[in-house]
């Protein structure tokens, strides 16, 4: 891995990710609206929302909450920077977990019952998706012999050929990470609310804007994971990978609009069963075949 590509990766992520993430959110809302037979908001609506939130009067329950939310943003951005600089996959997973923990702590600190139940559910969701994320990292290691993103991207094999089960498992938990129904337990983007606004009930104005932009950064980084499955040293593979990312996101929107919200027990059971059947079996097969 050389320094210039790393710096270019980081710079591109820092600048382009919020723009792409916001646009993706706008397209998401438009497509969702069309699926529901509505006209839907303009594509740029998430940006309007973001700038409006910046204009609002700041109200905070306590001082630390803004600090934690800021940490959430910073660690999400650091995670993404590691990823797009071609860093170590394990380090990325750990800093992602740390970022999510900061959001949970921020919600706990507000002392509101809605935010606290939302925070508890967020912890349960993390329990639900963490095993699959770790299995994904292990899968990449077995295929490429390295946890390094730069090595994975520049290897000759396309990871999906060896990791179809892990890919499907990852797409499954992506529903949790992208906060889509049926697993949007801790907070929801929809009109049908859960726990008022769950995690973010007590955040308003600028604090809320910070959470929004952190989500955009996070979504782009998560799609980067999908990208990783399809990219190799061939020159056309990035194009294929980006197309697959968009298709995956579309499927998530479809799932989002077709399912009602489920209980947290189902979320945990389902994602652990998926992690064991798809993820672990895939690893076993890979281990004995190679």
């Amino acid at each position, binding site marked *: 891995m050389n320094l210039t590509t790393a710096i270019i990766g980081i710079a591109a992520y820092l600048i382009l990710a919020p723009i792409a993430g916001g646009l993706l959110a706008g397209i998401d809302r438009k497509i969702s*609206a069309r699926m529901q037979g509505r006209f839907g908001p303009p594509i740029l609506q998430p940006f309007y929302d973001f700038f409006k939130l910046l*204009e609002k009067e700041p109200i905070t329950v306590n001082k630390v909450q803004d600090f934690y939310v800021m940490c959430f943003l910073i660690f999400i951005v650091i995670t993404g920077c590691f990823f797009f600089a071609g860093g170590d996959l394990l380090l990325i997973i750990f800093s992602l977990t740390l970022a999510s923990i900061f959001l949970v702590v921020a919600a706990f600190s507000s002392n509101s019952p809605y935010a606290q139940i939302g925070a508890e559910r967020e912890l349960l969701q993390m329990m639900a998706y963490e095993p699959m994320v770790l299995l994904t990292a292990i899968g990449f290691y077995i295929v490429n012999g390295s946890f390094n993103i730069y090595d994975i991207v520049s290897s000759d094999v396309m990871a999906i050929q060896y990791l179809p089960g892990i890919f499907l498992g990852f797409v499954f938990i992506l529903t949790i990470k992208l906060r889509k129904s049926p697993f949007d337990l801790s907070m929801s983007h929809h009109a049908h609310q859960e726990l008022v606004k769950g995690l973010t009930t007590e955040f308003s104005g600028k604090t809320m804007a910070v959470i929004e932009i952190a989500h955009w950064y996070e979504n782009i980084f998560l799609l980067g994971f999908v990208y990783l499955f399809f990219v190799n040293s061939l020159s056309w593979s990035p194009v294929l990978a980006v197309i697959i990312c968009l298709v995956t996101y579309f499927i998530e929107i479809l799932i989002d609009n077709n399912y009602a919200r489920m209980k947290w027990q189902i979320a945990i059971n389902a994602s652990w069963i998926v992690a064991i059947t798809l993820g672990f079996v895939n690893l076993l097969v890979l281990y004995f075949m190679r």
Partner: protein
Amino acid sequence: MSYVTKSPWIIHYDGSSCNGCDIEVLACLTPMYDVERFGIINTGNPKHADIFLVTGSVNEQNINVVKQIYEQMPEPKVVVAIGICATSGGIFKECYNIMGGIDTVIPVDVYVPGCAARPEAIIDGVVKGLGVLAEKRASMDKRIGVIPAAPEAAKEAAAEVKEKEEA
């Protein structure tokens, strides 16, 4: 330019309405009227809301609820009273427990008369509220505080409606 007018999030509270106006408010969110076209989202959380839609009049029991929701909303904020009940008390005006319109408790910016108010009228009212919202945002910038009372036009309209009611 103010972004407040492009992304007004609403919170809807049912005072002591007969539910007629509530159904009309919710009708605005359906595919038929689809207010999300204008970036309007029904949040259900006062801390995220810009526009407070109240249906029904204030009674002795919910004075504090209405006040609290209003106080929890961050500036700039606008209150839209929907239906004749929220405007003046309407058919419930004479009841022993009714205080009257919403403006007896919190400052109201836009009145949407009607029994029940039609979805078109509600959307019109919200759009009118956007103007007030922009004004309030501008006055926040100038640090001259927030305009507490309704704009004159809306007040006159409300007064007319009240007169008709009484006649």
